[in-house]
């Protein structure tokens, strides 16, 4: 029988949650790498036993772990992330130039086709790639070398490259997103990049419609329609039907359009999910109610999903990498909270139940659908 493996990164270790296809009884293993910040773990689409994990601490820096057996054992691989050439400068919070300095890996995105190839999105914002299963890393310098690079500025969480999307129909096309620069696209496998932020409007920057400078929190696509992108921005939920060339707002009737994650149903490309957060100064759900919002129309019209989720006295956040979907017949949806809960829905969001309630603050959730 098919099953799922949920990879959970937290402030103090990683956890692996497994269940069969019914998704009602869960085995919890962990903490792996206890005491370390686990920003992200993700499995290879080409080999589900191959996992990559980003492990870091303020004391001992960045490590990368790799598993070749689905998380049963791990091997420490390369952690040398060196910017290509002379790093140059970006802008600091106060508007002064500041040299690029590697801090951590926010996101690992394994190749769709090669288990040994994996991309890393890092802070300060840059894109690295390994083609030897994480042993060595090389920057794709065309991104950071874009003419706008010296004007990029960090968001409150740091200047991070947090989202990497691969176009399954075109191996030379990638999308990445940076807080707070925006979305960039390459059509030549990472040699050159261009910002694709037309239509975004951010009142928090001097020119609200600038080409770069937007605090994009997350972008998502359905693999069957890689030209359609969905975005949760600092404020505003957006969509693009032309691979990012233009965007339009689809926040519709959301109670607040601030938030972090956004994801797409595995079988319905127009069904999307967000978790509205009260505001950028109050990083918790509105009205004490944990509500996932689902749109079956690709945005604009949203419904609150509340069954099984706390509807009073709840003040958690859900971070940008902390939502994922499985691809079983009835699409499963998963998310983790700053309060340490991981919730699962085996019916596309109609109802929810916690898998675990008391983990450390959840940083990331990824799901593997297993044969």
């Amino acid at each position, binding site marked *: 029988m098919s099953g799922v493996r949920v990879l959970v990164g937290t402030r103090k270790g990683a956890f692996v949650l497994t269940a069969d296809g019914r998704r009602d009884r869960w085995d919890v293993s962990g903490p792996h790498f206890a*005491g370390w910040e686990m920003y992200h773990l993700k499995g290879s689409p080409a080999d589900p036993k191959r996992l990559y994990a980003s492990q870091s601490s303020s*004391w*001992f*820096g960045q490590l990368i772990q790799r598993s070749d057996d689905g998380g049963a054992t791990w091997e420490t691989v390369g*952690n040398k992330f060196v910017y290509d050439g002379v790093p140059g400068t970006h802008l600091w919070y106060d508007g002064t130039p500041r040299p690029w300095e590697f801090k951590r890996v926010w996101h690992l995105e394994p190749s769709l086709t090669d288990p040994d190839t994996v991309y890393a999105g890092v802070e300060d914002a840059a894109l690295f790639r390994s083609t030897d299963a994480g042993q060595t890393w090389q920057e794709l310098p065309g991104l950071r070398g874009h003419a706008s690079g010296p004007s990029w500025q960090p968001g409150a969480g740091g200047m991070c490259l947090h989202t990497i999307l691969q176009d399954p129909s075109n191996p030379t096309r990638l999308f990445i997103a940076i807080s707070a620069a925006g979305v960039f696209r390459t059509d030549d496998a990472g040699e050159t990049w261009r910002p694709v932020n037309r239509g975004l409007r951010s009142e928090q920057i001097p020119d609200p419609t600038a080409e770069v400078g937007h605090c994009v929190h997350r972008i998502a696509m359905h693999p069957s329609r890689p030209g359609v992108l969905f975005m949760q921005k600092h404020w505003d939920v957006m969509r693009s039907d032309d691979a990012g060339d233009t965007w339009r707002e689809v926040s519709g009737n959301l109670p607040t359009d601030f938030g972090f994650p956004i994801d797409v149903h595995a079988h319905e490309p127009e069904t999307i999910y967000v978790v509205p957060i009260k505001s950028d100064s109050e990083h918790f759900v509105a009205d004490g109610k944990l509500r996932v919002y689902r749109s079956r129309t690709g945005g604009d019209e949203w419904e609150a999903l509340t069954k099984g989720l706390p509807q009073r006295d709840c003040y958690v956040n859900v971070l940008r990498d902390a939502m994922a979907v499985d691809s079983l017949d009835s699409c499963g949806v998963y998310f983790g909270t700053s309060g340490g809960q991981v919730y699962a829905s085996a019916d596309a969001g109609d109802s929810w139940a916690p898998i675990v309630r008391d983990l450390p603050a959840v940083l990331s959730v990824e799901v593997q659908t297993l044969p």
Partner: protein
Amino acid sequence: MIRVVLPAHLRTLAQLNGEVELHVEGQATQRAVLDALEACYPMLRGTMRDHVTQQRRAFVRFFACEQDLSHEPPDTPLPEAVATGAEPFLVVGAMAGG
């Protein structure tokens, strides 16, 4: 023989129990000890000092003989008691985090 004591997280990372005993060629200095340590346990590279600049990470400290050697130049000879193995060289995660 030089004795090195690592903090718990680095012992776990290197799959070590207790002290590390290292043979260091030539004069025992902070740099020579860390070079020898990283050669034996490559997974520790980058965790105590930067890969490129070789500068000590801000929250890592080096103690020995009840002295803080963290700010000593890396090629300064370590105390004789460390060089002879009478006292350990301590790699310490700085107290931080509240």
